[in-house]
Each structure stands twice: as C-alpha cells, then as structure tokens.
C-alpha cells in the first residue's frame, strides 16, 4: 500500500508538473506575441527589448522551438531597424541583425521548410548593406537563395511579397528597384492578405497594415494624395491600432499635404 501511494504521488507530481509546464508555455508564447503586437512602432525600442526578453526567457526553456527562434529573430530585426533612422548606429544594427540571422538559421535548421523564416532572412540579409557593403557578393548570393527558397515553399504568402516589395522599394531605381516597381508588389501582398488563413494562433500574423501603408506611401511619393488616403483608410479598417499607419505613414501623408 505504501508503495502504491508513493507511486501515485510521484506520478501525480510528474503529470501535474508537466501539465502546468505545457499550459505555461502556450500561454506564455501567446502573451509574448500579444505584447509584441502591442508595440506601437519601432521607435519604441524599450518595448521591443521587453518583448524580446519574453521570447528569450521562453526560449531558454524550449531551445528547439523553431517558432520561438523566429519570434526572437523578429524582435531583433525590429530593434536593428530602430537603430537606423537619421544617424544610423551601425554597431547596434550589426549586433541585432546578426543575432536575427543566427536565430533564423537555427529555426530553419530545426524546420527546413519554414517559409516565414526564409522571408525574414531576406529582410535581415538586405540590412547587411548598411554595415558591410563590401560583402556585396555574399549579400546578393544569400538574398537570392532565401528568396528562391521562400517562393518555392509558399508562393502565395503575402509576407513574401511584402518583404520582396520592401527590398525593391529601397533599392535604387538604377539597380532595378524603386517606387514604381515596388507598388504592384505591395498591392499583390495586400490582395493575398485578404484570403490568408492563419495556420494556428501562434503563427506569424504581421504585415497586413504594412502592405496597405506602403501602397499609400508609394502614392505619397508620387503626389497622388487621394489614392494614398484611400489606402491608409483601408489599412486602418483592418488594423485600427497600427502604429505603423498612425505614426509613420500618416506623418508622411500630412507632410506631403502641407506642401
């Protein structure tokens, strides 16, 4: 009898511990994603660092969760961007961007058909122009590899078109980039977002507001302010709290209006 009690007790403790553990985990991830979503815009670096910390703490418990590596990488990418601005801080851009690339590589090592990670890699890779333009060959080669991989895995992923469009937008026209080439890609991304189905609730779900906002920005750059306003409204309809739309795009729009 005593033995049985012991076994039951141990068993109970074990099951119980695991259960709490599992719930904690999903909960924690959901909470962390919520916190990340709530970050108004990328200039709020403190909030980004807090969100990053949440993912990092969960990650040290579950080192082989590709999704966690992805989310932490996403935070790193945002933090790297936060250092760009008027006076880019290359040391910090490099620090967070390289960390982002490392984490994404880990994610695709664990799950090599994880399209979202390749999409993010495209973006992180293009940031390298900022701090190591002398590695031009490597940047171009890796960029092309990630692009091909992402497109092959999920040709209809709206974020693939969004990132591809972003890179195009910031590439000088003389290199085959520019506003005119980027806009149709942003529009395609927006269209795909309309029918996009989330695989599960922890899956990446960012970018819809950015797609609409960037189409608007393309119109702002071409002085078609009415068109721009339409797209800002479209975006706000689906994401009324979007810091990207309210903070960044609206500002650009209002400045253009003043002129």
């Amino acid at each position, binding site marked *: 009898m*005593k033995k049985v*009690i*012991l076994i039951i*007790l*141990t068993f109970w*403790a074990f099951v*119980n*511990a695991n259960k*709490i553990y599992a719930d*904690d985990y999903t909960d*924690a991830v959901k909470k962390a994603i919520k916190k990340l979503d709530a970050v108004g815009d990328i200039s709020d670096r*403190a909030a980004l*660092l*807090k969100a*990053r*910390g*949440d993912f*990092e*703490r*969960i990650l*040290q*418990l579950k080192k082989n969760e590709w999704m966690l590596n992805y989310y932490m990488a996403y935070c790193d990418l945002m*933090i790297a961007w936060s250092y760009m601005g008027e006076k*880019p801080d*290359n*040391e910090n851009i490099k*620090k*967070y961007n390289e*960390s982002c690339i490392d984490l994404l590589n880990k994610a695709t090592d664990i799950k090599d058909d994880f399209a979202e990670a390749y999409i993010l890699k495209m973006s992180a890779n293009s940031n390298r122009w900022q701090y190591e*333009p*002398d*590695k*031009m*060959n*490597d940047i171009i*080669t890796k960029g*092309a590899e990630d692009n091909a991989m992402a497109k092959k895995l999920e040709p209809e992923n709206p974020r693939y078109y969004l990132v591809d469009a972003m890179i195009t937008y910031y590439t*000088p*026209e*003389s*290199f*085959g980039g520019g506003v005119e080439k980027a806009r149709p890609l942003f529009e395609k991304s927006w269209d795909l977002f309309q029918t996009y189905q989330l695989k599960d609730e922890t899956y990446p779900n960012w970018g819809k507001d950015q797609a609409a906002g960037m189409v608007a920005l393309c119109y702002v750059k071409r002085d078609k302010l009415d068109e721009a306003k339409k797209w800002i409204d479209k975006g706000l309809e689906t994401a009324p709290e979007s810091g990207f739309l309210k903070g960044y795009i609206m500002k650009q729009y209002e400045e253009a209006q003043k002129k």
Partner: protein
Amino acid sequence: MKKIYLILIAISFSSNFYSQGVKIYGKVTGEDNKPLNGANVVIEGTIDGSTTDSTGYYEFETSKTGQQSLLFTYIEYNERRKSLLIEQGKNIELNVQLRKAEVETEEIIVTASSYTSGQQSQVTITPLEIVRIPGSDGDLYRAITTFPGSNQVDEGSRITVRGGDANEVLTILDQASLYHPFIFDNDFNTSSYTTINPWGLKGINFSSGGFSAKYGNALSAVLDLKSYEMPQGTGAFLWLGLANVGLSGVFLSNDKKLGATVDIGQTILDPYFRLNGYLLDRYNPIPLARGVGGTLSYKPNEKSNIKAIFDYSEDRIGIRNTSPSYDGYFNSRANTIFYNLKYSAGIGSKTYLSAGLSLSHHKDEISYGILNNDVKELYSKFRLDMTNQLSKKVDLNFGGEYEYDEDKFIGKVPSLSYNLRLDAPFIDINSNNHTGRIGGYVEAQIKPFKTFFTIAGIRTDYHTLSKNSAVDPRLSLGWKFAKDHILRGTVGIYHQFPRLEFYAQASNFALKPEQATHYILGYEFNKSEGLFLFRVEGYYKDYKDLVIRDPNSFLYSTVGKGAAKGVDVFIKSRVTNKYSTWISYAYTDSKRRQYEAKTEVSANYDITHNLTFVGSYNVTDNITTGLTYRISTGKPYTPVNGSIYDSTYNVYEPIYSKTNSGRFPTYQRMDINFQYFFSLFGRFAIAVFQINNLLNQKNLYDYTYNFDYSERKEIITTNKRQFYLGLGVQF
C-alpha cells in the same frame, strides 16, 4: 517512509502553489560599469524573469522559492549564472556584471606578416577592394603591392618582397604552383599583367615572411590563392574596355552539383595607345595578348568536390630599344598552358583531405640583335594535404608533394654582354635540364587557451638533380594579450633551390638550396573587426648559400650571403560608412652578395622607404571614387664609369662601378578612378573611368648610354599619364 511523502508534498506545494511573490531586482552592467539595456534575467527552468531597462535595472516577482539559479544573458556577452536562496517574503537585490565574449581566435591572427582575404570576419582586404584600388587595374598582384613590404617590378604584376627577388615569391592556386600567371612578363620596358581573375577567388592569403611549413621552395613570400569549389550562380559578364575586351560565364546546375566557368579575353591596344599619345612606330608588332580559360566542378556529395582548371594565354610584343651597340626592336612571343585537377573530401567529421595534380607549359621566344632565345619550361606537381583535428585544442596538418621541372633552352647568347650587334660573336646553346623535388611537412596548430595560439612545423625537401636536401623547422606564436591587441612572432628556416638555368652552369650541378632564416615580431591593434587596424612589424632575415657567378670561370656556385632588416607599418580604417583608407609604409635595408656582386651590396630591390596611400570614397550609392599615391626610394642600379675600346669588334666595353651602387631618382605616382553602377536595359552594369599617373610623373625604367658610354640617357617607363574607360554588363 511517511517523512518522505511529507517532504515530497512539501516540495511540490512550496514550489507550485502556496508561495507568495518575492521581488528580485538589481542592475546589470558591462565591464566598464556601463548599464546594459536589454539584458535578460531568468530563473533557470522557468520563464520567471525580466529584461533590463536603459539604466540596466531589472525587477520581477516570482513565486518560486528555495535554491535557484539565475541566468543573465546579453548579446555578444558571456552568459553568467548566479545561485541564490529565495525565501518567502524576502526581496532580493542582485547586481551582476557581464563580460564581453571573446571573438574566436582565428588562424589569420596567428601568422605574422600575413594579409588575408576571404569570408573570415577579420579580413584585411576584400576582392571588391582589390578591383577598386586605383592604379591596380583590377590586378591582384598590383593590389598586393599596396601592402607594406612588397614592391612592383617595372610597375607590373611581378612582386618583390622585402628586398628579395621576384622569383622568391611563390604563387599557389589550389595547391598548384603558378610560375607564369602573367602576360608581357620580363619584356623590355613593359608592365606585366596577371591572368588570374580575382572574382573566382574564395580566399587570398599573402604572406611576406614567416609562413607555414606547408609551403616549400620559397625564400621570401607566398601568395596562396583558393578558388571557389563551385561557381556562385549562373550568369555572364561582358567587359568592353578601351584596351581590352572580355567575356566570362558561370553556370551552376539546379541541384548545385555541377558547375562550370569560362573566361575569354583579348587586348586591343591600338586605340588605347592613340588616345594616350604613344608613338605607334615604337612598337612592331603592337602588343597583343589573349587568353581562354575555364573550370569544371563536380560535387558528388556534400563532403567532396572535384574541380578541373584549364587556362591558356599568349602574348607578343615588339618594342624599340636603342642600346649602345644595337638599335632595333626587342621582340618577344610567349604562351602558357596550365591544367589543374583537384579533389577534396572530408573524411569523418575531423579529417579533411585535398589532392591536386597540375601541369604547366611555358614557351618564350625573345630576340634583340644577336640575342635569340627560345625557352620551353614544363612544370608538373602532385600534392596531397591532410588536416586532422586531434582535439579541440590541437589541429594536425601534414602532406607531401612531388614536383618535376624541365627547362629547354635553345638559342644564341652574345659572348660579350656589351656587344649585341647582328654580327657579334655568340655562343650557341642547346641545353635540356630537368629535376624533381620531393617535399613533405608536418605541423601542429596548438591553442592551449583562447587567447594563445602556436604553430610548430617542420618540412624537408630533396632535390633529385643536385641530390641536396633541406630541413626547415618553423615556429609561429600569436598572443591576444588584451581585447583588440595581438602580439605575433615567427622564427623559421626557409630554403629555395636555384633556377635550373643556374644548375646548367654549375660544376656537377652542385648548388645548395639558397637559405633564409626569418625572425619576425609584430604587434596589431584591431578594433571592431577591421574598423580600425594598426600593424607594426619588424623583421630580420639572414641569408646564406646564395647563388654567385664566378667572374672568371662564369660558373655558378652557392657561396653568397647577406641579410635584410626592416619595419612594416600598416594602418587601415573605415573612417565613415562612405570613406575608407589604408596607408602602408615599409623601411627596408637588404644587402646581399648574389649573382654578379663581388661584396655584400644593396639587393636588386632594396627600396629603403616605401609609402603607399589608398583612399576610397562612396560619393553616392552608385558612384565610388578612389585615389592611390605611392612614393618610394629609387631602385638600385649599377652605374657605368667609362669604357674601353675593343678594336677586334669595333665596340666599346663598359666599365661598371660597384654592383648596385647607384640609385634611380625617387619614384612617385598618383592614380585615380571613378566607378558608376547603373542599370542598362534592366541589367546590372558598371562603368569605370581611371587615370593612371595623374600628375604625369616621369619614373625611370633604366639608363642607357650612347655608343662609347660617354653620355647617359634616361629610359622613362611607358606608364605616363594614361586614360582608361571600361564598361561591364552582367546578364
């Protein structure tokens, strides 16, 4: 037993249910007590924790009690664990300092005198920089002469290092020795160019002394080039230049297992000469060079690779020269064929093998007056290298090579060096010599601590013609004694067997290998992986068994000796994102008794002071510009004091002063270039405009004399101010 249940229950209850929050707080700082923003704190095995704010402060509440371990992490810093006892109701303050993580010590920081390029993080120069260096004409060797310790021969691609001769520099491509990777090599008043394409290179390692026991039969320096095993993609590049045209293509199969490249090019110098005001009647024929080459790569599996290289080049030139005894064209025709087959494979996870078989033919015909030579050389080499990781701290490298050299010389050589007339007396030579060299080495790379590195190696070589052998022990040390500060030192013995033509003129082929003992000590300050790099290095080289020609018997022996000492300084800085620069300075004092010298005199390339400045500026994203400026002490030469009339042949014989006792005037040259990247019909395109020798400074190639040596005339190098335009399109 009951006690055990109780304890068990107590533990699970205390840790999971009934405890109340305990606040843990504190500050996380870096080495200099600066707060770290964004550092992470977590109770290990839980997700309880926090992230520091901009003052380094963190706080969080936890329900966990008992003995716990707190983990602190921060990007680029070493993680740190602190154990602490959490008791209910007692808040805890815990301040922690983190240390920056040491960057892994890489091989390149170890060897002294080495300048490396490649994918490593601590690169000294990148292939893009090579192409962009003004005045380098996209030529790898010319780019290397912007580093301290190395000099150009006749402003061409041949390099001399620390006062030595050009043939003391060994070029290796994927294990094969390259003896003639040049066009217009050794021609009268003509700059040579290399046939090596820098874009195909994965790694460039130039060592101006103190190199590893892997490299044999080189006295002064090694340029070790590694090509990409597989092409990087599929595409083609067309180059249309004012002086040359070229087309290259690369192909990589979809499964990335098969790759091929092809390169074809030719010079068209007529328009270039006309634009730059060259007198066309100085040339007959106008210089022409062309080449074709290619590679084929196959990757049977992830761990192995087979690669074949083929390269052919030819050139011809006739250039007018008025010497005291003859006035006419110096004519030369040369061609070189090179084949290399390389196999590399990983065996298990700790051993790497590579084997290479190479074959090269070189043919050179020159004529000037009575001088008429036809030289055919053949080189073949088999080489095997293995690397084995014995433990985390010790790597073992070993390997061997067999090299076969053959030299056929047919032609007329003037009996009296000062009489080159067509009717002058001559010696008819028809010689054919060959030799083999067998070499082997073993070396250990030992890294007892993260900041200390040593390479100890030994090699031996045996020369089958002279039956002489050499044993070369070598030792390198590298010590990163503080963050960003590195100290390096090398001691080693280096041997090189004289060229076959010397053996042909020695009694019983009894020439010893020439020997140099290198002593090198250097210091490097390297901030943020090349953001700012400062290097200073001192060396002393002791030479013995140098080749000497006996003035009476004209036979060669190896009884010469000498010494070289000097200091190299190198500063490289990425000043801003748009502007980067490097400056190199070398002081050299190299004295030798070699070849014709009767006593120890300045070596042929004993350039006392040599200063080079290279700057590159990105005007916009699309336009870059650069400037190179070089100033150096003039090269030594042997002046002529007077002459004696030789009535037999009605010619004057010069009377020479002491060998290398004169010096050319100071050498100076400034080069600039502009590069514009743009899109042409939707393709990536680059346009280059460059001006070499912008200030049109007159540098000396040599002196010549009138018929009786009573008047000295300057021969100015052909590198006067020159404009060049080129357009490249990728498709």
